[in-house]
Structure formats: structure tokens, C-alpha cells
């Protein structure tokens, strides 16, 4: 018993100061990709095919689809002109699919849900996780959101054991043929109004499995997605930032202000 207390005291509080404090990332962290169109005036017609993902759609002007990004160093290395780089920006969740596409890699960050939906479950949304043709990486980061560092429950957000208890679903994976019926059934079982959150490159456009006969290319078009969270897998802070934005708990102002309260050891 004394050991329990002693170790408890030694452990201290390890919860991140987010969203008041900005999270810190190591130098090599690959956050939101950025594209410099001036380095490639022909709109990537010659080289877009060299990028091992759908990150760059040839133009001109070329379109950068952050939703298709696999956050691999090879995507940047494939561009002979060095036009693709990864920034340390972890914020990249958007309310719309088109919000992830731009000429420079800029993302139209997620907006809060409409007032009625937010009034209904803005303070304590209950979510049901549906993994549908994933590698398990995105689920691992969703689970990590529950640990003491990210501590999702302090924002009132919880994953629940039944779609009947849920206000929305979180979809991960490219939606395999064997999961498509179960995904639809889970969605149908969630009472209206409900939200759909697509987490990770697979759920957004098929990710590394795009083109396989056994998967769709992410969440099917007839499920209305309210929040798109890019990543392979997204860092827990990217997911948390997206969730808090859609719930109206972060706007541009608050995420940048405040002291940095995270020690390097417990930084995400």
C-alpha cells in the first residue's frame, strides 16, 4: 500500500496541457505536408507518378491532397525539385473532403458543428469505433487518446460499447469488402442526429491499400462525413485537435495562446 502511494507521488501529473499549451514535436516529426508550386512550374505533370501516394495530383496547377498523404519520407524525396516538404504542423483535420485539397498543402481547418448538434452532445459526445480494413495503427492512436497524457475523457469524449449509446462513429480503415455491411449496420444503429468521423489516410482515400480489389477507397460516398482527420496514422494530437474543433472547443485563437506547460519527457 505504501509502495502504491510512493510510486503514485513519484509519477506526478503527466497530462498534456493541450489545448492551452501547444504540444511539442521532435525535429523529424512529419506533420502537414507543404507544397511550393514555384519550384515546379509545369504542375508536376512529369513527376506526380513518382510520389508513392496520391498526395500530388498533376496540373497545372498541381493539387495537393493532404487526405491522401501517407506522411512517408519517400513522398518528399520523390520530388526532384524539393517542392514537397513536411512541416511540424500537427493540425490538419477538416470538415470537408475538399478542405484537405489545395495548391500548397494548406488545410481548411475543421469548423464547429451546427448549433443544434453541438447543443445536443457538444459537451459529452459518445463515439463508436468501427475499424474496417485497417492495419490497426489508427486504432492504436485512438486507444492512446485514452492514456493519461492525452486523456480524451477530460473533454467529455468517450468511446462506448454500443452504437445505441453513441452520438457518432469513428471510421478507420479503407473499408474492406468484408466490413462494408457491418459499417453500414453500425451507422444505421446510431440514433439521429449522428456524426461520422473518418480517421486516417485509409478511411479518407484507401491509403496504402488503394487500388486493391478487396477494399473500397475509404468511407463510402453515401455516409456523410463530418470530420476528416489525415495521417498514417494521425498523431493523437491531430485527432484531439480535430475533435475539439468540431465540438467548438478550439478556434484559431485558443490553440496558439498560453504557456507551454509540457515537459519534454511527457511531450506527446
Amino acid at each position: 500500500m505504501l509502495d502504491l502511494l510512493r510510486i503514485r507521488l513519484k509519477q506526478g501529473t503527466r497530462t498534456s496541457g493541450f489545448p492551452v499549451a501547444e504540444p511539442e514535436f521532435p525535429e523529424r516529426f512529419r506533420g502537414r505536408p507543404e507544397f511550393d508550386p514555384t519550384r515546379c512550374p509545369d504542375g508536376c505533370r512529369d513527376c506526380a507518378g513518382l510520389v508513392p501516394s496520391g498526395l500530388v495530383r498533376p496540373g497545372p496547377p498541381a493539387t495537393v491532397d493532404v487526405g491522401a498523404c501517407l506522411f512517408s519520407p519517400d513522398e518528399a524525396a520523390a520530388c526532384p525539385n524539393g517542392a514537397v516538404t513536411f512541416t511540424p504542423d500537427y493540425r490538419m483535420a477538416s470538415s470537408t473532403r475538399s478542405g484537405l485539397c489545395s495548391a500548397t498543402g494548406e488545410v481548411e481547418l475543421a469548423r464547429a458543428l451546427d448549433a443544434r448538434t453541438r447543443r445536443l452532445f457538444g459537451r459529452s459526445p459518445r463515439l463508436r469505433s468501427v475499424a474496417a480494413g485497417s492495419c490497426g495503427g489508427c486504432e492504436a492512436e485512438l486507444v492512446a487518446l485514452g492514456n493519461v497524457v492525452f486523456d480524451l475523457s477530460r473533454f467529455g469524449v468517450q468511446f462506448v460499447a454500443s452504437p445505441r449509446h453513441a452520438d457518432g462513429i469513428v471510421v478507420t480503415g479503407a473499408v474492406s469488402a468484408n466490413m462494408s455491411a457491418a459499417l453500414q449496420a453500425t451507422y444505421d444503429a446510431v440514433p439521429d442526429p449522428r456524426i461520422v468521423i473518418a480517421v486516417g489516410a485509409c478511411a479518407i482515400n484507401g491509403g496504402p491499400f488503394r487500388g486493391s480489389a478487396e477494399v473500397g477507397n475509404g468511407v463510402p460516398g453515401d455516409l456523410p462525413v463530418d470530420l476528416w482527420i489525415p495521417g498514417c496514422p494521425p498523431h493523437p494530437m491531430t485527432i484531439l485537435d480535430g475533435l475539439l474543433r468540431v465540438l467548438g472547443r478550439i478556434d484559431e485563437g485558443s490553440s496558439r495562446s498560453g504557456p507551454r506547460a509540457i515537459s519534454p519527457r511527457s511531450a506527446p
Partner: protein
Amino acid sequence: MSGFDELGLRNRRSVPLGSVPLEHLEAFRETVLRAVGDGWRLISYFGMPEGSLDTRLMAILAHDATGALGATSTVVGDEFASLTPDCASAHLFEREIAEQCGIVPRGHPWLKPLRRHPPDHLAPGREPLVVDREGYPFFRVKGEEVHEVAVGPVHAGVIEPGHFRFQTHGEEVLFLEIMLGYQHRGVERLLETESADRAVLVAESIAGDTVVGHGAAHCGAIEALARSRKTPRAQAIRGIALELERLANHIGDLGAIAGDVAFQPAASYLGRMRGECLNLLMTISGNRFGRGLLRPGGVAFDLPPAMVSEARGRLEGLQAELEPAARLMLENSSVLARLEGIGGVPREKCLELGFVGVVARACDVPRDVRHDHPYGIYRFSHIPVATAWAGDVLARALVRWVEARRSLEFLLEQLSALPAGAPRVVCGALQPDELVVAMEEGWRGEIVHVALTDDRGELRRYKVTDPSFHNWSAVALAVPGNQISDFPLCNKSFNLSYAGHDL
């Protein structure tokens, strides 16, 4: 033609495809059965189209005591006599062959769908088959007070999809059947058809918590076929990444087991420490799971001196914290009482069915690729194999704990003596008509990638076996006799990958 064991095949050492025996079915069966009787293990067994109507079956065998590998093959039409009645460890491989190649292993005692998909390695001249993805003939126990509990594919927590069908009598589980395939993404076809730079991204996504393990097996297979020789520095950095992955997952699993018996202090401390390991992988590779680090020819990121000393400092800090947190759990009688005697795997079943990794080592079967088929850094730096004997939840937890400590020691040792050299060398075109077997001891256990090239040096067949492929059968075996309410704890103590099984 030489014997199956005379090819000079070793872990990551390729051989000409022409040297692999091509035997008549009867002789093939005899070769495999005799080898298994002589202490060889069937580590991979798969089919690939041969001509327009036939399928070539390829069996890969491992002799753990000598580190030798063997291979033999046969060509069959639309059916063949199953090995399973005489060699139980072939049972899943033959279900897989039936599904992937659309041929029938005659006499297989449990021929059910494995992942429920149309054949993706069907001989090109054969009629495509239509597969019923929903139909699955569950085994049922009948009796007045027997009832059936169906769980999944969508689970109560944040868990990958799978379906569990329990036959229970009151609280007691009489039988458990596990139906998987929900995560099937067609990984092997993608690895065979995508360009090399995309294939490595697919390999890193076979199982998202085993990015380094599968990435290393893939790179090992490609490098052997390309005759690319990594520098000792690259080998050491790969070893560091693999042991960090093991450390993260073993710590996380210990925490999750504590969570499942409602021992919150250890669950929360160990859960956070798992994150520290992932964060260290992110410092090195830019991604918490080590994505982007391993590439054919070496590693994409070097470890500069400042990062090495930072990593050492962080790991020493972790070592100081980990010991008391794990002891808190593993020396607590109320925790031990919940772990002991639950979910036992008998040693003889492990040997018969070919379980691997932590599951095998927890029932006193000391299998470890790092030790038995050493490669890369493990040829120079040895990690003792950790075993326990009881085969239950506690034994699996103890093996994880011992392995976590040894991984930490290995990491500190490697970081204090990192060899010089380039992190990455060129990895060029693949040799034509060759066979290579790349084995890796991932944190769950033995990963096997087998690659075959055609006469142009293109990949003709790429076979992936995740440790979960074998070990899901161990879960089905361990649960009967326990209360159904202990299923989550049992399952957590295995912590298998759905994605790695389903491919």
C-alpha cells in the same frame, strides 16, 4: 536434384528457384511429413499458379537447432491430398491455399473459409469462383442448457474487427470459434503488383503495431534478392528500432493486462511508458510507429551523436521508472490471483499446432528467430531467450516483462557502441528466378516473408505470415474451460493482430 535440406537456404539467403525440389505429390508429402517428424517446423506453405491450370505448392521448413531452412514443392491440379491429418501445423496453411488458389485439400478435417475472399492466386485458366463472404459453418454444441454467444465484428472498445462464437454452459465456455477476415485488404497481391517504393509502404501496413517487424522482413527479403549488403550501422539501427517496438508493445500489453483486472495504477503508468517508447521511435523516424525508417538498403534516418545520447538518457529514465511500476503489478497478490491459471495453452498443443513468439515461450517452447535463425545485429549481439512454463495469462505476462527488460538492456548496449558507416546503401534490381525466406522475431513472434522472382526479376509470389496467423488458434484453445467473463483478459494476454492475420 538435391534434397529439401541441401539447398543452402538460410534466413535471408536466397537460392535459385531451380534448385528447389519439384516432387510428385506423394514424395512431397513424404518429404514434409518426415521432416516434421525429424524436428523441422513448417513455417510457410503456399500455392502459386503454374501454367494455366495448375498450382505449385511450396513448403518451407525450418530447423531451429541448426538454423537451417529447407524447401520443397509439388504441382497439383484442382485438388490434392491434405497434409493436415498427419501434420496439424499445416491446417491453417491448407485452408489458406484452398482460399487463395481455389483448390481443395482433400481430407482436410476442418476445411472452412479463412478470410472469406475470392481466390487471388487462382491459376489463370481456371474458372473464377464466387465466394459467399457471409456464409460460415460454425461448430455448434447442442444441449438443453447450452447457449451460444456471438461477439463482433464491431467490438465494445477500440479494437480491430473479428467475430467470436462461444458455445457456453452457464458461465463456462465449452468451445470458441474465431471467424476472421474482416481486415482483409489483399496485402499479398499488393506486394506482388505495386512498385517497390509503394510496396514498402504496404509492408509497413501489414500490422500497424509491427511496422518495424514487417518492414524489416520485407527489406530483408528484397535486399537478399538484390544482393544488397547493409552496413553494420544500418543493422544496428534496425535492431534498435525493432527492440523499441518490442519494448513499447510489451509495456503496453502489461499495462493493458493490469487494466483488464482493474489494477489502475499499473495500467496508467505503463500505458504512458508505452507512449514514451513510441515517442522515442518518433524522435528517430518522425513517426510514432517507426514508419519511414526502414528502407531496402538500410535505414532512411541516421542516428547522430546528439540523438544517441538523448535516446540513452530517455531510456535510462524509463528503466528507472519501469521497474517499480511493473513490480507494483507483478508482486501484487490480488493481480497475480487473477492472472494465474487463466487461459492456459498446453505445451504439447503448442508443439503440435506450431504456435510462435511469446505464446510459445510462455509454455516452455523456446522459439525465437533472433536466437535460432540470427540475422543482422543479432548475429553479433545476443539476447537470451525468455521462457516460462505454465502457459497461462501470468506466464505470458512474465515473458513480456523479462523480454522488455532485455530489450532495454540491448538498446542501451547498442546505443553506447553504434558502429560507423553509411546508414543506407543502394539496393538495385532483383535477381531472376530466386527464392528467399526472410524471418524476423517481431514483438508478437515469428514473422515470415517468402519472395519468389520470375525470369525478369519481378516478384512472382510474395507470401506473408504474421505470428497471429498461427496464434489465433491458441486463443481458441485457451478459452474453453474458462468463464466467458475471463475472455477479455485471455484475449489481451495474447494481444494478436487481426490485420496481420487477415492481410
